[in-house]
């Protein structure tokens, strides 16, 4: 039976990967993900986990080794952050295009510069187009539960795609908190042995990764697009099966206290947890406000999102990254894409918060709520804005 214990989230996540009986871990240490691969390395070294730990010379090599290992039919796990994810960039496309099942944990951290090891979402949000399934966890329990879920999604014969599991660096990865860890036996009842649909085999040789000439590249990209969109149904089914077995249900889009809410906050990752504390206080005071967030980011669950925010008049969207000189934050961009042209679409107030480890306190939500409330009361929708910035986003030099 699962035991509830106080443990650092990174350690629990590494143990969950171990309980999934991964065959190969190829990884390079980078803050704030280091404890995950460190712990896996010691599990292997101490004989608790029968796996190949490949201490590679860079993240580029890590992802390349993972591609080889997944191609050979091994259950493959890796973890990275920030610059490490960026260094993997070109290989990420290949892992998805070759339809290689594997799971990568990303402890989200800001990209340099200035050099910064703390949390925001600039690493994952700049990797939106790589063709991986991407999920977000908000706390240690979710992060730990999602490890076997991600392996099962990735290896599902209908899916066969790499899966990225995101959670916030430090504020989740380094937190010691109560976690009910599933045992190896429990995970075994949920995650069957990896039976690759296609694997490198010297007795039945074939070529993975041949050139795709202009006459076939478009079709190859369409096949990838279809594969990731079609993964939605299996993902929902696997979430439900996990819930039926272990009592913790996950959904592509999660809602918190949105009943009758005129203003809904949209955000991702661990700040949602802090925001829930704030929403509870608001609700106690009679203010109708709730939270909607994406658990599943790729494929983008647009229909679930539309349902979740139906009835809201204003959405306050909190991004942890933005495109300089571009159209604001990625979550806001994608929500606007989702809602454009729908009847009675809510107005959107978009802000960027919590960059490079800047704490987002409950009072910060008060400030954002005021902006949303003004729009609700008829004020014009303000432009996208970096909040928490000294000098003001639209301040003069």
């Amino acid at each position, binding site marked *: 039976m699962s035991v509830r214990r106080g443990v650092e989230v990174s350690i629990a996540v590494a143990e969950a990967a171990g309980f999934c009986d991964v065959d190969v871990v190829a990884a390079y240490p980078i803050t704030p993900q280091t404890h995950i691969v460190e712990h896996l390395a010691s599990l292997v070294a101490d004989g608790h986990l029968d796996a190949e730990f490949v201490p590679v010379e860079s993240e580029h090599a890590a992802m390349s080794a993972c591609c080889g290992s997944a191609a050979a039919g091994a259950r493959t796990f890796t973890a990275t952050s920030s610059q490490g994810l960026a260094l993997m960039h070109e290989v990420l496309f290949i892992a998805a*295009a*070759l*339809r*290689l099942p594997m799971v990568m944990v990303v402890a989200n951290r800001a990209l340099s510069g200035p050099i910064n090891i703390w949390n925001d979402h600039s690493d994952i949000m700049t990797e939106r187009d790589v063709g991986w399934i991407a999920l977000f966890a908000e706390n240690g329990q979710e992060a730990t539960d999602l490890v076997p879920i991600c392996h099962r999604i990735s290896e599902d014969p209908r899916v*066969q795609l790499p899966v990225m599991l995101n959670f916030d660096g430090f504020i989740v990865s380094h937190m010691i908190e109560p976690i009910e860890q599933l045992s190896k036996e429990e995970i075994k009842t949920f995650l069957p042995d990896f039976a690759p*649909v*296609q694997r490198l085999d010297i007795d039945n*040789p*074939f*070529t*993975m*990764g*041949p050139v*795709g000439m202009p*006459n*076939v590249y*478009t*079709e*190859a990209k*369409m*096949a990838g697009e*279809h594969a990731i969109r079609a993964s939605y149904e299996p993902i929902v089914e696997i979430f439900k099966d996990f819930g039926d077995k272990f009592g913790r249900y996950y959904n592509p889009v999660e809602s918190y206290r949105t009943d009758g809410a005129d203003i809904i906050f949209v955000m991702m990752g661990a700040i949602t947890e802090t925001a829930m504390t704030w929403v509870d206080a608001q609700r106690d005071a009679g203010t109708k406000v709730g939270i909607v967030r994406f658990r599943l980011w790729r494929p983008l669950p647009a229909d679930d999102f539309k349902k979740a925010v139906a009835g809201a008049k204003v959405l306050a969207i909190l991004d942890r990254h933005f495109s300089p000189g571009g159209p604001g934050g990625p979550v806001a961009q994608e929500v606007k894409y989702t809602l454009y042209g729908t009847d009675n679409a809510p107005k959107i107030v978009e802000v960027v918060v919590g960059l490079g480890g800047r704490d987002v306190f409950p009072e910060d939500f008060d400030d954002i709520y005021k902006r949303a409330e003004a729009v609700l009361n008829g004020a014009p929708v303000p432009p996208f804005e970096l909040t928490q910035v000294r000098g003001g986003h639209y301040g003069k030099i």
Partner: protein
Amino acid sequence: MSRQSPTPKWQELSLGCATTEPGSSRYQQTGDWRSERPTWKWENCIKCAVCTVFCPEGCIHMNADNYPQVDLTYCKGCAICVAECWTGCITMEEEKE
């Protein structure tokens, strides 16, 4: 990628665009690329077979008399055999119309 059709629909592609059958390079007739062909001066050939080893297309074979023989369907005229030949008995001759 399926070789049955050079223009498959996306639904017809194999998983991850893999080439699922071995030996597909046979269908790439690299001989079309050739503007010069290797020609042997047989009296100088010592039948060492070094040309068969270095040929990047693997299209030179030793025949029944143990002399090298090139398969012009695949010889792309790269002249690596000329550079590697110990006795210098191979020369490149221009392809005629």
